[in-house]
Structure formats: C-alpha cells, structure tokens
C-alpha cells in the first residue's frame, strides 16, 4: 500500500506511469477511508447542528 511502487533498484530511471502511494494496490482503500470520513463528518455535523437548535429552542 505504501512505499515506492516500482521494483527497479530504488531509482526514478525508467519509471513511467502511476507513481503515487498505492499505485501497486491499495489506492482504493484510501478512497474508501476518505469517503467514510466525509460521511461521518456530515453525521457529526448534523448531530451538532441539531444540538444547537435544541439548545436554542430550550432558551427561547
């Protein structure tokens, strides 16, 4: 998942193509984690916002 995705003696010589971490497998895992973060952030945000509304209603 991590590390240099090419087995050519640890050099950039001759490297062509995807060079990112996870290029030889695992990139999709990062994508899934990022999606989960976004969804969880929305859930937490919604709960927090509702909490603020309830607190405000209780005061009014």
């Amino acid at each position, binding site marked *: 998942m*991590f590390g240099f995705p090419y087995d050519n003696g640890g050099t950039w010589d001759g490297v062509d193509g995807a060079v990112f971490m996870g290029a030889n497998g695992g990139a999709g895992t990062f994508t899934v984690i990022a999606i989960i973060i976004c969804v969880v952030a929305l859930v937490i945000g919604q709960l927090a916002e509702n909490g603020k509304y309830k607190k405000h209603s209780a005061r009014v």
Partner: protein
Amino acid sequence: MEEQIAELAAQVAALEGRGALTNTMFAEMFYYITIPLMIIIHAGFLAYEMGASRAKNALSSGVKNILAFAFVIPAFYFFGWWIYWGLPQGFSGAAGPNGLSGAEFANSIAWGWGESAAFMGPNLSDQISGVFWGAFALFAATTASIMSGAVIERIQTVGFVILAIILGGFSWTLAAAWGWHADGWLVLNWGVHDFGAAGLVHAVAAFFALGVLINLGPRIGKFNADGSSNDLPGHNMPFTATGLMLIIVGFWGFLMACVVVGGEAWSWGGNYATIYGTPITLGALAFNILMSIAGGIIGAWIYTKDPFWMMSGALAGIISAASGLDLYFPALAFIVAFGAGIILKPCASILERMGIDDAVGAVTVHGTIGIYGMLMLGIVGAGYPAALGEGAATISLIGQLVGAVVFIAIGLITGYGSSLILRMLGMLRVPEAAEIAGLDTVKVPAQAYPEGILASAPAAE
C-alpha cells in the same frame, strides 16, 4: 536531390530553433506567472492580519506587513540568492556533486556586482535567472508574512523589518539550500523530501516566529495573573477569512513555482520535475492540493465550527500534504489533511497554555502542521527515491525527522537570537502606553475607519 535534402535540413533546423525558443518562452512565462500569483498570498496576509487586529491597530499591522515585503525582496537580491546557491553543502561553501552549488558557483551567478551581475539584471541571453529569482524572492517574502501575523499589535516596525530581513534573506534560504536543492546535504545524506516546502518555508518561518514571541511577550491583557488567557478577537472576522482564502489562491502559484520546467539547459530533462529532479506533473498538484484543502477544512469544521479555524484548516491541509504533493494519492492527501484540520486547534490551545500569544495561530498552522506534514511523508512515503539518479537516498521517517529538527533549529535559533538582540537594544516591543492607546493613533497618519462602521444608506427607490 542534394539541394532538396539541404533545404529540408534547413527547415528542420529552423523548426527546432522555433521549438526551442517556444520552450524557453514557456519556461520564462511559467515562472513569471507564479510571481503575481504569489503576491496574492501577500494580499491575503495583509487582509488576514489587519482583520485579526483590533481596530486600534488595524493600519499599523498593515504597514508592518507591507514593509516586510518591501525589504525582504531587496534583501533576497542582495544576499539571499547567494546563500541558496552557495551553501547547500554547509557553511564551508564547498561545491556539491551536481555542480550547481558552492561559493564559487554562487559568486559567478548571484551577486549584484562584478561579472555575476550579468545574471542579476536584464540580459537577452538569459531568460530564466530573473523569473527564477523572482519566484524565490516571493518564497522569501512569504516567510516574513508568516511571522508577521504572530507578532501583531505590540512589535516595533523597524525591529520587525530587521527580523523579516533575517528570516527572508537568511534563515529560510539556508534551510532551502540544505533541504531543497539537488546538492543539499540533507537531500543527499538523509533523503529529505519537502517538495512544497512544508518544513523549509512554513516550519522555519513559524519557529522563527516562536523564537521572536518568546522575547516579545504577549499582548497586554492576553493573560491573567493566574495564567489563564483572554480572547482578544480581531475587529473584522470576514476580512480575516477572506484573507485566508486569498492566501490559498496564492499558494497555487507558490506550489507551481516549486516545479522545474523541462526542456531547457538547466532542466532535469524534457518534462516537469521537482526541485530534486524527480518527476512530477501539474496534474499531481491539481489532485492533491484540492483534496488537501477539502480535508483540512472538514477536519477543522468537525472540531471547531469556527470559520477562522476552518479557513486556517484549509491552509493547514495544503501545508500538511505539501512535502509529498508529488507523490500522494489524492484520497491519501485528503486523509493526511483531515488529520491536520483535527489537530490544529488543540495544538494552538496547547501553545497558548504555555503562555505564548500567537495572535493568528501562525506557529501552529505553519510550524506544527509543517512538521506533521514532513513526518507523515516519512511514514507513508518511505522507500521513494528522494532525488534523481542511481544511489539517491530514499525517503524515510528518520530522514524526515532529521530534516524537521534542522529546520526547527534554524528557525528557532535565528529568531530567538536576533529578537533577543533587538530586545536588548530596545527595538523589539512598543512602549506600554502606545500599546494601550493603539498603534494607529500613535504612529499611522491615517484612520482605518474615519466614519466608524455605519449602517449603510437607504437603497434608491
């Protein structure tokens, strides 16, 4: 037949000449465009600092920021450029293995006098030195602006300008020579990789600011006798948030200028490369900058819900991924930046509890997150060749840690030392009475809001 071949050869030669000229013009234009883009960073810092100041100090904060730009640029011309090219192998001024460094090399291209002056002024046979120097000069000015926000509302103007010159002309330049140059000893020996300057610009400037803050002390009223702190909110949060957005726009130019254009005699090859000579595409920047901005904002939103920290989170997101923008997978850049957004505010609170009054959170956003970004790359990017060529050192956590410690030391030592001298000379802190009255009314011959902040006039019918 021979005539036709000769004519064809001449046409090919002409085409090659035109192609080469086009490439040269493209390279020149590439860096030229980064300069105004990076000036947007300064527009952002100007708005950000003035908004984060109380109304009584709004203009004096602006004056300080403007002067930092004005003095750092010539300082970088006078000696900063020489340091970058002269000292990658250390203070000995020895030449590096790539033949692009050392005192002798720097003497030949980077002084504004003698024979090297040919490279430091308009020259029709040199279309790169000016724009390349210009981009670096804007990096230098950015370091001063980073420090500028932390020290608002109580620092003397000239004392601050001297600090800006030391930071922009020397401190960050030394860090860049060591860790952002193909001949840099940190790159060659430790595999330090900091593509977008998270450590050598952001962290160096932030730890320089921390050194200054230790000597400068907090603003009057910031801390109570029992050590608890008070909030001293700026007078214009929308202005501050807009300034932060401008900084983020400008950073596209900053990061673009970290790319070396291909196809020229001074290039690493025929295509884009990092300053280390390793391959990169502008597509990598588009993917990873955007995703890291998003991750930083979301992380800060979850923790704070505060637009100031959300926009700071955007900046922190970019900084956290900056070291490896050339290597990250976009979703991984998002995750790293999300982490930066989450830890941002708690780290700033810890600093405040230590009695440091960093008015805009610069030490945290640029320093803590810059180091976080360098170390994250050391973890997830371990094994990548840090530079071009066989036998290049690879990225590692230890290497990134060594680089981070060196950058922290450069910033902290030079910032603390120079501000200590200024304090002893009585050039660091404004008098107490002036601070209480407000610096605008003491020394700025203009008013920020001569009519106050009024309700707008009625609309026309």
